[in-house]
């Protein structure tokens, strides 16, 4: 049994490294050069801030390389700000003078970062036809205050603000599908783990025992959650509105369930179970029934996230290190992302379906990192002033 397992995992590693190379050659190489030298800014700090955030966003998108001469694309127009900011942005192909995008924007000068993120995403879409990630928000747990509180920042790691001041413990933040609220597990009610949602004073779920890792379905009505109500931690569905249990999906008296996440169509849930003796990733229908195990190699497989691109990413312990796996539940192929010697955990898809935001731990300090599933090197988004971990990316 164990022998077969190792042979299987060795073959999988070989196959996955081949697949990775093919993907890199097809899509990752050859960034589009883009020149913003002719884009004029006012003398004010908001306008200059806008331009530098826009350039950084375009570089971070993975599709562009910002250059100052001889680019394939030219961005022209201007930005000016008093108390209000006005920006005109046009994107041309250098060779043919074909206009790919032309738009005017108005915003409060204080919101110059938000506006720059929006413009960056619109340039990515106009040129590549793909969704960008610059406007996404990252929720995470931070220890800066000496307690474990909930924080939110922009996708570039800037604009950090503290959301909770509960002086309790926060675990497992997740965005609601409308991107307006965050569900999280906290001990602020009876010193017990209960599931809360921002904007609601009362817990969403406060059953006896464990209430944790609540994740709202794409239609906003149902929450997948881990409850120990039945005498063992199991995966349940509850009503978001009333908090009442709807259905228990697992019955594993020898194991724990953890970390549910929804398929993009809301019909399935991927989650972790250790009922085989080690934690692995499974998929189950929202109606219950037979669960299907999708992870095979690695001594621990944890914390899955199902992207709108159809791929599931999770964290796998490989060779004594936590690494990030990307897998297709339909073709049953998977690969391990190239990372350094540190531990990478809690991967979450960015809305562009290309990048993954995760925590990186080295020397017992945790930071939030951006990984590219195609080619680019990992980038630190949030680090220092305490630990930052358990990221959740807005849809």
């Amino acid at each position, binding site marked *: 049994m164990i022998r077969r397992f190792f042979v299987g995992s060795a073959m999988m590693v070989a196959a996955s490294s081949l697949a990775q190379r093919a993907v890199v050659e097809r899509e990752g190489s050859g960034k589009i050069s883009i020149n913003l030298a002719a884009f004029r800014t006012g003398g004010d700090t908001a306008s200059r801030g806008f331009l530098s955030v826009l350039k950084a966003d375009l570089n971070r998108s993975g599709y562009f390389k910002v250059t100052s001469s001889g680019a394939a694309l030219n961005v022209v127009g201007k930005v000016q700000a008093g108390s209000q900011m006005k920006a005109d942005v046009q994107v041309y192909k250098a060779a043919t003078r074909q206009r790919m995008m032309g738009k005017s924007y108005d915003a409060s000068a204080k919101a110059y970062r938000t506006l720059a993120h929006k413009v960056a995403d619109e340039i990515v879409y106009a040129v590549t036809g793909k969704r960008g990630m610059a406007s996404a928000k990252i929720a995470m747990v931070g220890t800066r205050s000496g307690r474990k509180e909930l924080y939110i920042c922009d996708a570039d790691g800037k604009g950090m603000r503290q959301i909770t001041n509960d002086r309790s413990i926060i675990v497992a933040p997740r965005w609601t599908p409308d991107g307006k609220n965050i569900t999280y597990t906290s001990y602020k009610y009876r010193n017990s783990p209960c599931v809360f949602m921002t904007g609601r004073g009362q817990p969403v779920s406060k059953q006896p025992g464990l209430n944790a890792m609540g994740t709202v379905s794409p239609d906003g009505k149902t929450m997948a959650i881990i409850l120990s109500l039945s005498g063992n931690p199991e995966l349940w569905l509850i009503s978001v509105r009333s908090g009442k249990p709807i259905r228990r999906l697992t019955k594993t*008296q020898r194991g724990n369930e953890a970390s549910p996440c929804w398929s993009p169509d809301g019909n399935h849930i991927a989650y972790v179970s250790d009922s085989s003796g080690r934690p692995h990733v499974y998929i189950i229908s929202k109606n219950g029934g037979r669960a299907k195990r999708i992870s095979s190699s690695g001594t621990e497989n944890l914390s899955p996230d199902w992207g709108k691109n159809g791929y599931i990413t999770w964290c796998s312990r490989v060779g004594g290190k936590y690494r990030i796996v990307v897998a297709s539940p339909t073709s049953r192929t998977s690969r391990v992302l190239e990372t350094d010697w540190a531990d990478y955990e809690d991967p979450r898809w960015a809305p562009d379906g290309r990048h993954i935001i995760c925590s990186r731990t080295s020397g017992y300090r945790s930071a939030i990192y951006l990984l590219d599933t195609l080619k680019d090197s990992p980038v630190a988004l949030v680090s220092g002033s305490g630990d930052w971990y358990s990221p959740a990316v807005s849809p």
Partner: protein
Amino acid sequence: MMSKFLRMCVFLAVAGSLALSGGCRSKNANDADLYGSDNLYGDPLMGDVPLADVDGLPADGDRSVVDPVYFAYDSSTVNSEEAGKVEEVANLLNKNKWQGVIVEGHTDERGSREYNLALGERRSLAVRDYLISLGVDPSKIQTKSYGEELPDNMGHDESAWRKNRRAVFAMY
């Protein structure tokens, strides 16, 4: 030592028979079918006694009465060497020296925070199952998992981890 071992055997037999009775047999066969029977760590089959409502019960207690129960890595099995502490708590509760207990489950820092939250709860529940098998009224037992969030020892080696994989008794 021998008597503790015997009592542990009795506990496992009781837990097993609880699970097998009441029409659960087909479910267990189903579990084995779904997940395989390669249970490497031999975690106990849970007794499946639903938790009682805790609203109105104390949310904290005295942690100095009985020492914590310690666990092996990624395991929620109460070892025979640790079983005596659970028996001591059962004795205190059965003699009504205390009204009830909150069993607080903890893990070491390895593994994900979310998985550890479930593992800590399972440790609490394993202790709860053992208490129930010793005759303690289930409504006297609350469970609470802190996962890896409140380590007893802040170190990062096996000696620290061993102290952190624990179930603490908060008596009230």
